[in-house]
């Protein structure tokens, strides 16, 4: 799997103009179950909580081992929130949506902060 960019849902939401855009990078290692899981989970979370304002870059370290150094990747899968700053890292297959939202610092729909 080559690294490739995947614009989130293909359109930018004019209503979300005042909201931050999320620039995300997901590091995986090959087609392991955890990798596949992570990709699916991430799409699901983004579509639900960040519709129209995210961008995912997928990097397979098996193919591009040197890219692991740039973002200090040790564990995989690792999701890196590059924007908005500051940078955040979420490790794991992203099956724990609650923790993914905490990590991304995204307000869950309904306006309640993640600290519920």
């Amino acid at each position, binding site marked *: 799997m080559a690294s490739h960019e995947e614009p989130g849902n293909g359109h930018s939401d004019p209503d979300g103009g005042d909201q931050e855009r999320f620039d995300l990078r997901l590091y995986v290692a090959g087609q392991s179950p955890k990798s596949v899981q992570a990709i699916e989970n991430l799409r699901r979370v983004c579509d639900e909580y960040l519709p129209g304002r995210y961008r995912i870059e997928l990097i397979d370290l098996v193919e591009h081992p040197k890219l692991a150094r740039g973002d*200090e990747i040790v564990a995989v899968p690792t999701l890196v929130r590059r924007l908005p700053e500051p940078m955040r890292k979420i490790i794991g297959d992203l099956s724990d949506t609650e923790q993914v939202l905490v990590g991304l610092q995204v307000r869950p729909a309904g306006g309640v902060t993640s600290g519920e």
Partner: protein
Amino acid sequence: MGASAKRRGGTRVESRLPKAASGIRGFDQITDGGLPRGRPTLVTGASGSGKSLFGMEFLVRGARDLGEPGVLLSFEESAADLRQNVASLGFDLARLEADGLLVVDAIHVDPSEVVNAGAFDLDGLFIRLASAVDEVGAKRVVLDTIEVLFSALGNEGVVRGELGRLFGWLKDRGLTTVVTGERGREGQLTRFGIEEYVSDCVIVLDHRVSDDISTRRLRVAKYRGSSHGTNEYPFLITDRGFSVLPITSLGLSYGASTERVSTGMPELDEMLGGGVFRGTTVMVSGSAGTGKTTIAAAMVDAACARGERALFVSFEESPDQLVRNMASVGIDLHRWVEAGLLQMWSERATSYGLESHLGRLERILDDTAPSVVALDAIASLAHVGSAGETSSAVARELDLIKARGITGVLTTLTHDVDVQSSALEVSSLIDTWLLVRNVESDAERNRLLFVIKSRGTEHSNQVREFVLTKDGARLVDVSVGSAGVVTGSARAALGEQQRAEAARREQDTAARRGALARRSAEVDAQIAVLRARLADETAALDRRVAQESGEAGLADMAHTALVDARGDGPRAEPVQGED
């Protein structure tokens, strides 16, 4: 993969464990060759104990000197910090990286910016490491404080399992690995127990401060399948990197020279059967002001006079003072300094710790490569550490000297009371031991020199008087008088007295001879008189005999007539008349 690694290791333990030289000075000596090749070694210690540096030097020496490229994964410091830190030790990481001999990968994991959201593994680390290893064809790997992953990634169970997999992978790849770990509480080797993955070799570093002097120590806590010293070995972090200082008795493998070198005093050479063997160590002990320094200076002087290089280390005097003071007894050290043959190094032993002193000594020995070294007053070192530490420091000092085949002369201050038992228990490391002793008599102090021992030499058992003249140090035969050994002016006086006595005896004998001759003449005269008297008496007797025989003839005739007339009676013969 772990199983195959284990099997391979297992068979080799039976024969001889293959080792990878660390290149760290002294370390390969105490471990009989270095670290277990192709296997992980744990280096643990408190923060600041030098464990990262150990790993770093292992890598740099391997890459630069031993043809084994390496990879450093550092979990604590940034690559820039690392480069800077080791640059002060003369290691040029950037250069080695540029030459494709080293990969430095600093892995920064900040727990505050990591959220755990599901199952993960450490494939990222594996991939990074594998990529780096392949990049330079690494044979060595250092994982500097990999333990931080335990706290950084949150899930200890996963990390533990993954580290197990990592070490299995490292062994499988045959990578000689150093893993550093922080010392845990209550004597635990590491905080997170990573020693469970490292069953082959564990090295413990320690940094102690006592009496304001810091000493670093290294101990091989475990080395499976290999002999190793179990002592704690002091080590130094010098501007040339790590330096472990093996205790001297570890290897007594110095070559033995049969060449004699002069002590600079012909009389002393004679006492020692022609000088001391090259590469041996002479200790001069004595109380204050006995001329120990002068003996040391004489040896140094003699070496320079032979055109050899020498080093004079003084813990008591500055070089200038020493030159001046030795000039007063006719030893001109200045010319040798000028000629570049003599290096002088003065240091207050108390200014630094013993360890750093040793480190600097080693360095000077390396730089100047002298053939004779004088250490003036090693007892000064005793102010720095405890007696045991000092002895061990002196022992290692001697080791540094002996291992290089350098002839050493060291002086030590003893007090007259315990003059035979050296204050520093190093006498067993000394080949030749000279003792200078003050003798007080007749309001004078004089010096006596003894050879207490001299290995491999038929040395004199005599005591000599040691005198310092303006032409240098000399030894003089002592005189033995009725009250024992006499020295100084008493010796001179005794000599005078003995000469007078001899003269008197000679006169006396002459007189006796004269008297005897006279007596002999007297006796001869008496004999002559007696003979004369005897002759007189003989003559007188003869005369008388003659006279008496005449009278007897007449009487005989008368008697015969008378007998005839009577007709009986025996013939009476006169009894006397034998002569």
